């Protein structure tokens, strides 16, 4: 039995040496597979070396599961090849779309949660799980505006998606905070309605404001330390749902490996105490 996953961090190539030498118990790493889907060469080779040393999670950003079209077969095939090569312990994607009309729009775009959308996302999740040969987990997105035309609340939509496909869920607590703030929803009420039983992974990240927008709009920027408001929500989740593998997600303003390790340690302490500050 491998040791259980505790707190992990986003992997960046700049941290390769430290990652290989780090023996922190329960530490794991997550990457966007799109960055390692080369036919060969040093990038997938590096990931393979990392995966031999630490548990690895593949967190996709481009399967476009909420598009009114099946995921790209070539992309699924390449993802399967990477799955076979690095044997990830977790595979996840987003409740969003990003590919349409032959183009890839590098963002995670929103959609009305209709019956039609649910049927489509469920079909796409099933197709992906078949192609990858494993269960995938779906992440709640960050919202910046309120769309009209929803048939489902997001939490009910995700519950039903789990029921129809057997998928897991990735609960991004920072997205909950950002979305609640931006769309006037109560974050705690959202979390209390969230199907925590299906959660396989939790994301914690920093957020910020964009200079082009009013400071009232929070952006899921992944370029800052995890905010205290997000730590509070995280403790609430742990007290209700129990411990889950937790990722410190960081993409921009990359700090030193040790700074990220300190955030991992804070999450690790909370995982051990069930959300109570030690």
């Amino acid at each position: 039995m491998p040791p259980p996953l505790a707190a992990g961090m986003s992997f960046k190539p700049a941290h390769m040496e430290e990652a290989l030498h780090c023996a922190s118990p329960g530490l794991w790493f997550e990457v966007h597979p799109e960055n390692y889907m080369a036919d060969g060469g040093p990038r997938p080779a590096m990931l393979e070396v990392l995966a031999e040393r630490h548990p690895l999670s593949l967190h996709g950003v481009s399967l476009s599961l909420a598009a009114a079209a099946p995921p790209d077969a070539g992309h699924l095939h390449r993802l399967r090849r990477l799955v076979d090569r690095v044997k990830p312990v977790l595979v996840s994607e987003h409740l969003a779309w990003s590919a349409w009309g032959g183009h890839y729009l590098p963002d995670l775009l929103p959609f009305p949660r209709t019956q039609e959308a649910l049927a489509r996302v469920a079909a796409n999740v099933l197709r992906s799980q078949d192609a990858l040969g494993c269960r995938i987990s779906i992440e709640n997105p960050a919202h910046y505006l309120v769309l009209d035309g929803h048939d489902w609340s997001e939490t009910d939509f995700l519950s039903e998606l789990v029921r129809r496909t057997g998928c897991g869920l990735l609960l991004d607590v920072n997205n909950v905070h950002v979305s609640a703030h931006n769309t006037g929803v109560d974050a705690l009420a959202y979390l209390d309605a969230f199907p925590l039983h299906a959660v396989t992974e939790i994301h914690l990240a920093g957020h910020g404001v964009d200079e082009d927008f009013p400071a009232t709009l929070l952006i899921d920027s992944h370029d800052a330390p995890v905010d205290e408001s997000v730590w509070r929500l995280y403790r609430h989740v742990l007290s209700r749902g129990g411990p889950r593998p937790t990722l410190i997600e960081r993409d921009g303003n990359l700090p030193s490996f040790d700074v990220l390790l300190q955030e991992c340690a804070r999450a690790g302490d909370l995982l051990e105490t069930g959300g109570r500050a030690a």
Partner: protein
Amino acid sequence: MNALADFHDAFVAALHDEVSSFAPAGHAAFAMYRNTVMRACLDALEANFPAVLCLVGRDWFRAAAAIHARESLPKDPRLARYGDDFPAFLEAFEPAAGLPYLADVARLDRLYNESLDAADAEPLDTDRLVGVAPSVLAATRLHIHPATRWLASPFPALSIWRPSRNGVAVGGELAWQPECSIAVRVAGEVSMLPASRAELTMLEACGRGATMGEAAATVATAHPDASIELTVSGLLRSGAFAHP
């Protein structure tokens, strides 16, 4: 039941068109999506064309890249591949007319990334060719390594690319002459090597499946002044070939 598809169509149109009747685009926050998509495209082009970025500066680069991105969104979510038509765009881009070498510098940036991400293959062990009878050698077909790329430029593209790739200004000693380049990947590292026109002719012939004898004959015809021996030995040393 195509409401979701209609929503995608309208959303994508509103990403391009700031004057849109699509209801969600009426929110000020809709611009977040426009900005994020465009920023990701520009960041990817910057990352994929560092020598071009160095030559023209960040403001010029992002202004040009934004025009290109609006015409040519990514097709592949592997953004390291984005920009396959950016060199051709730069070639036709009026404000770049004073920098005629820019498109070839962009092509070298592109070849570098292609070489980096190409499939793995065992390199040719050139020691195995030592002592082989000339008639056998002439009938041998050399396989080009999947990570090998080449470019013939009418400009000193490689001499401009090399310092620019490292963020350094091109020195004044630049000789203004055509240059050929070969990208090879050895032990996971890409090298961009200067080459002769004869070496590229040899590579092209090998790539078409010619034997070494046929390739040598092609080189001799096209470049009567070139030394076949030097052309072959230079290519073999470079790591451009794979084990068959």
